[in-house]
């Protein structure tokens, strides 16, 4: 495998982003992701009103020139809330997945390399974590500690841990017999050093795809939680929460729910299509988004 790669002249290798953009679903994915990220990052600067200011106008107004998407049940400007509402939905899952990789990821990296009872304990622990679906685990944690941002980050990080562990384990086990690893061992490098400086750079491909997918699952989990009223709390502007608040007036003002719904969908669909196009370059087949965030 490594031999085949080495025989290919470097100059002939097409960069990954070109291969991804060559496929139509890859292009759509990159475009959707880019547009959503732009909206999330630049949106707050463009917001005409304070997203949490109440009674700007009479409540439940239809769209007008001043309030492009109308006002909600508290007379807040829906358009401003929409422009602000992407921050939490991106930042909390991002922090959570970084936390997953810093804790469970690193732990599994070392465990898979060292093997033995340590590996057994770590994998049994993560197996046990898998025994309840992600949503139930998060709900238990929110019920116990309340829906504050650190709890949401930790809960999403925890639900991502078993899956990330499995991906890392699989990748590490594929590398442990490689020549470069044995060379490093022969040089007398410490386990942590072999793992982080030798193995990690070589498994970055599958790991980075997994990282991106976990962010989409985090987005799905967090927006679901906010929709249930147990995630991001009022009066903060958040797309999931906006849909929850619009739920009772869907008949009269469906746009208040539809616009943030489209935004959440394009972010998670965009990330998934992009990740799938990347995975196809690695494995030759689709199947990135298998499993429900497990």
């Amino acid at each position, binding site marked *: 495998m490594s031999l085949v790669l080495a025989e290919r002249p470097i100059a002939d290798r097409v960069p990954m982003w070109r291969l991804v953009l060559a496929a139509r679903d890859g292009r759509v994915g990159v475009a959707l992701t880019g547009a959503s990220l732009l909206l999330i990052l630049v949106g707050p600067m463009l917001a005409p009103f304070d997203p949490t200011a109440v009674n700007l106008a009479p409540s439940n107004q239809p769209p007008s020139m001043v309030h492009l998407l109308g006002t909600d049940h508290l007379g807040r400007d829906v358009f401003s809330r929409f422009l602000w509402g992407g921050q939490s939905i991106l930042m909390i899952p991002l922090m959570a997945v970084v936390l997953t990789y810093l804790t469970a990821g690193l732990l599994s990296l070392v465990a898979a390399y060292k093997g033995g009872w340590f590996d057994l304990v770590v994998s049994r622990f993560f197996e046990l974590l898998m025994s309840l679906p992600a949503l139930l685990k998060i709900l238990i944690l929110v019920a116990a500690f309340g829906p504050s941002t650190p709890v949401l980050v930790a809960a999403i990080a925890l639900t991502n841990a078993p899956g990330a562990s499995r991906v890392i384990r699989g990748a590490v086990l594929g590398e442990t017999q490689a020549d470069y690893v044995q060379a490093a061992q022969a040089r007398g490098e410490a386990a942590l050093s072999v793992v982080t400086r030798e193995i990690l750079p070589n498994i970055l491909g599958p790991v980075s795809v997994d990282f991106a997918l976990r962010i989409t699952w985090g987005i799905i989990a967090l927006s*679901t939680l906010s929709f249930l009223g147990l995630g991001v709390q009022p009066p903060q502007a958040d797309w999931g929460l906006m849909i929850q608040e619009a739920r009772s007036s869907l008949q009269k003002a469906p746009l208040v729910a539809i616009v943030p719904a489209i935004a959440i969908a394009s972010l998670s669909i965009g990330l998934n299509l992009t990740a799938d196009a990347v995975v196809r370059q690695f494995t030759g087949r689709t199947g990135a988004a298998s499993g429900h965030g497990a």
Partner: protein
Amino acid sequence: MSLRLLKPIATRLGANVVTLIVISMVTFGLMNLKAPEDVARSVLGREVSAAQIADFVAKNGLDAPVAVRYVDWISRFAIGDFGHSIVTGRPVSNDVLTRLNRSLTLAALGSLFGVAAGIVIGVQLALRAGSKADFRVVTGLLVIASMPEFLIGIALYLVFVVWLGWFPTQAGMAFSFGDAWARAMTFVLPAATIGLLLMPHIARVARASAIEAFASPYVDAARLRGLSERQVSWDHAFRNAALPLMSVIGVNLVYAVSGVVVVDFLFGFPGLGALLVASIGSGDVFTTQAIVMMFAVVIVVINIAVDLAMLWLNPKARFRAA
């Protein structure tokens, strides 16, 4: 059933029972982290006297050590006594059992639809593997799979409730006042949402395993022996394709069960999920832990059933485990 099958079955049952016990301990531990006085305050409100708090703590048995309360709780749970809600004071089992029934029916209907549609779509795709239509549908499935469940539900709600007006706005009303037909109708959209949640995952695995099975040497061999196409598909291809399919169906049945949390809330369906969300919101820890435990029991039963089905389907696993 031979005697050598008993050992793997016993091992799996044992592992699942241990899992269940661990889940019950962790859940109970987490639900009872708060000091009894804080639980009392969160239910009674801030402006309460010390005597009221002491009374609340004593009445709900919150003064005993956690370990004692755990053993008491889990042994009662095992015989179907889920305690009293600390918010309403009513027995939890009153609310929970009817809702469990409804939620399981809902999850079963949704899974049936999702699994059947997924297999049909997957096999149809496998027969057209590599074509343009195949690629388009596979991408479409990925798009559905990338969406949060509640967005699928909201889309169905907007089309069939708000726009077309085919269904009532809140399912709960039909349950309280409607006839049998009205009640049956309330299952349609929530079950469809759960089905759409599962379908893409089933379809993808069905497609992959059908492609693999039809390309395998034993299918060629069966054809060469002159077996009918039907025998080839069912006795040879399907039996081998069923194995990976069974494991993905198992995972998805579990998600169908947890999926009722979202659809209950979204469609106002009076199921277990709606009660779970409400009890977390109101700090009703007794109801919360009872419902979580019920979900855990249902999930473990599904896992056992899937394990047994895998043993039955896979001779290799039977011999390896024996």
